[in-house]
């Protein structure tokens, strides 16, 4: 059994929480005591049906205001797969949460209210999913029950969205007409929409092939921690020197010729160690410990790659940045801390090339700065070289976060473009 991580985007009005509640409920991931609590609260508020959104909106303020404030993670499993849902709020002021949820997602579900069709928010969510390179996108056209399960209405929305998606880089797009409230096409095929030939949403989630979405081509091993058992009672360990980390790309095997960056020195993989014994191969997302044949001075923040397939060694970066601070703004000369793979450095904003309107995709080149939830293209100068790939090629070696040194808050998320 493997794991599929998916993000859901949409507002409470689109029925997002109801959809999640439905998936959890129908897959029996909701327990009696949770359901009783929700039923009690629904009754207290005078809601006629059991408000499944109360299952996901866990904070007091969320319940009071009837909105989702923060990314909530939910879990359910079917015999085929374990699922991790990043439930992200749909309100404009919370774009940063959607970006956060999408950063690790294999798939995103964007909800559209069948009555309203493609609105500004749907376009924004779809754009953010593609910006974050979520490999699979599902447009769930919800509330089909309120448009008499109309095939024409569904086709209209599909055409309108397809036209918009042509402007984006959508790798895999699927449309599913549903009613989250009544369960149509959520877990099983709906009898109310015989004209729909596709699968139910859950069937789609269960059967989607995701293993090849990871980068298995470019070997990237950011060194996270050096393991040296100094006080070990076993004398054989005195000379042990292992480089621990999580594989970010490619497949590593013992005997492989590898290159260390920044030194450029070439050696071979002596062994791939784990607590459970040596491995014949390692690939993302495995956490392993490499031993190398030659003694090279290697520390945290360094990179192991292949001599003929290296990341870009760069101090000048081009990136799309989503700004997440409501205090500080990002503009030319802003100084920040950058964390990229296991390397942390300081970064200076050299230029803000444009601010992107996430609704129209219009580029405003006169924008002086980026504010909260704004996205733009920037040039950064970094105090030490980073080992980077285009975000489109590898999300782990192409993504970075920006930290405000004065507050220590995480204020930006960046995706590297034009690395090579």
């Amino acid at each position, binding site marked *: 059994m493997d794991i599929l991580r998916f993000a859901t985007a949409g507002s409470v009005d689109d029925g997002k929480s109801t959809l999640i509640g439905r998936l959890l409920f129908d897959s029996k991931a909701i327990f009696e*005591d949770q359901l009783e609590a929700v039923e009690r609260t629904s009754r207290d508020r005078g809601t006629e049906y059991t408000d499944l959104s109360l299952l996901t909106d*866990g904070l007091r303020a969320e319940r009071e205001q009837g909105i989702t404030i923060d990314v*909530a993670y939910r879990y359910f499993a079917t015999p085929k797969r374990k699922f991790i849902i990043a439930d992200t709020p749909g309100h404009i002021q919370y774009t940063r949460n959607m970006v956060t949820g999408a950063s690790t997602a294999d798939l995103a579900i964007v909800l559209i209210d069948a009555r309203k069709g493609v609105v500004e928010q749907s376009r924004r969510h779809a754009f953010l999913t593609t910006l974050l390179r979520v490999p699979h996108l599902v447009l769930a056209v919800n509330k089909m029950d309120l448009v008499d399960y109309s095939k024409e209405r569904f086709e209209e929305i599909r055409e309108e969205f397809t036209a918009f998606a042509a402007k984006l880089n959508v790798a895999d797009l699927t449309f599913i007409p549903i009613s989250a409230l009544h369960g149509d096409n959520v877990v099983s095929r709906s009898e109310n929409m015989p004209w729909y030939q596709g699968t139910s949403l859950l069937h789609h989630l269960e059967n989607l092939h995701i293993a090849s979405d990871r980068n298995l081509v470019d070997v990237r091993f950011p060194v*996270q921690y050096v*393991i*040296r058992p100094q006080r070990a009672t076993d004398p054989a360990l005195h000379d042990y020197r292992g480089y621990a980390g999580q594989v970010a790309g490619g*497949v590593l095997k013992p005997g492989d010729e590898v290159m260390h960056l920044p030194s450029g020195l070439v050696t071979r993989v002596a062994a791939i160690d784990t607590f459970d014994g040596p491995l014949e191969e390692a690939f993302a997302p495995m956490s392993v410990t490499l031993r190398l044949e030659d003694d090279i001075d290697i520390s945290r923040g360094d990179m192991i790659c292949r001599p003929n397939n290296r990341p870009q060694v760069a101090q000048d970066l081009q990136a799309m940045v989503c700004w997440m601070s409501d205090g500080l703004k990002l503009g030319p000369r802003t100084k920040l801390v950058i964390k990229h793979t296991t390397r942390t450095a300081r970064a200076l904003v050299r230029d803000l090339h444009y601010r992107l309107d996430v609704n129209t995709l219009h580029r405003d080149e006169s924008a002086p700065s980026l504010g909260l939830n704004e996205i733009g293209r920037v040039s950064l100068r970094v105090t030490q070289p980073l080992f980077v790939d285009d975000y489109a090629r590898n999300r782990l070696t192409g993504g970075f976060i920006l930290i405000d040194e004065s507050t220590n808050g995480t204020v930006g998320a960046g995706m590297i473009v034009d690395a090579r």
Partner: protein
Amino acid sequence: MLQSDYTTSQLDVLEAEAIHVMREVAAEFERPCLLFSGGKDSIVMLRIAEKAFWPAPIPFPLMHVDTGHNFSEVIEFRDRRAAELNTRLVVASVQDSIDAGRVVEETGRRASRNRLQTTTLLDAIEEHEFDAVFGGARRDEEKARAKERMFSFRDDFGQWDPKNQRPELWNLYNARIRKGEHIRVFPLSNWTELDIWDYIRREGIEIPSIYYAHTRKVFERDGMLLADADVVNRDEDEPAFETVVRYRTVGDMTCTGAVQSDAATVEEIIAEIAATRITERGATRADDRASEAAMEDRKKEGYF
């Protein structure tokens, strides 16, 4: 463990993620510690720590906040495990906090030291200058925990501000704090109760005996079976009786309920959990029943 098409099983993905988080903490913080209660989640967390740094020893101490009302089987297990790993164990005692006048013991039949633990925990973090504290909490446990980060910032007062959390993207964690602040780290965030048990089975990990079915003298309160022990105030209208039970969670005796069960092996426990219709905290924790937002409120104060 691996399949030829490079898919990775859910337990391997979760383990790899947790190992990554642990190594990140060891690399970026000066004085981390791992909260070890002898409960199943912290036992799994300890195994992950063993794996993350092998063949080197675990590079941080363990800490237990001991209410003095814990199950003796669990305390014995805790001490033995720490000794086996040759790891330093810091025991922060709620009794000491009471004796020092830092907290006042609750009275009445529902008296519990559960909430007092927060003060003891925060005092210990300050005393030992811990800057990162590993906890075994999982997001599937409780709705406030579903909003929790892997690296969860705590201010000078140990408080959690759920509305102002640091965004977490990809596998990048922001470890920057000022002196006096700390980060609670939850490497098992994405695990479910069933994942924990599946992992215990796969790894053949030993757990305290009270997780398995055993005969115990209990009494019923609010639909929960509490142990009949000196530290639990049982009223006369709450008759004690012997029955076969096991514990789904392990905490303070005053607020941790047992469930009636014959499950005597890990396999039987897994079968039981797969079929159960009540969450582990709902079935067994009086502390979460206080109100709709009981956990959120305690977490804001600095609770685990």
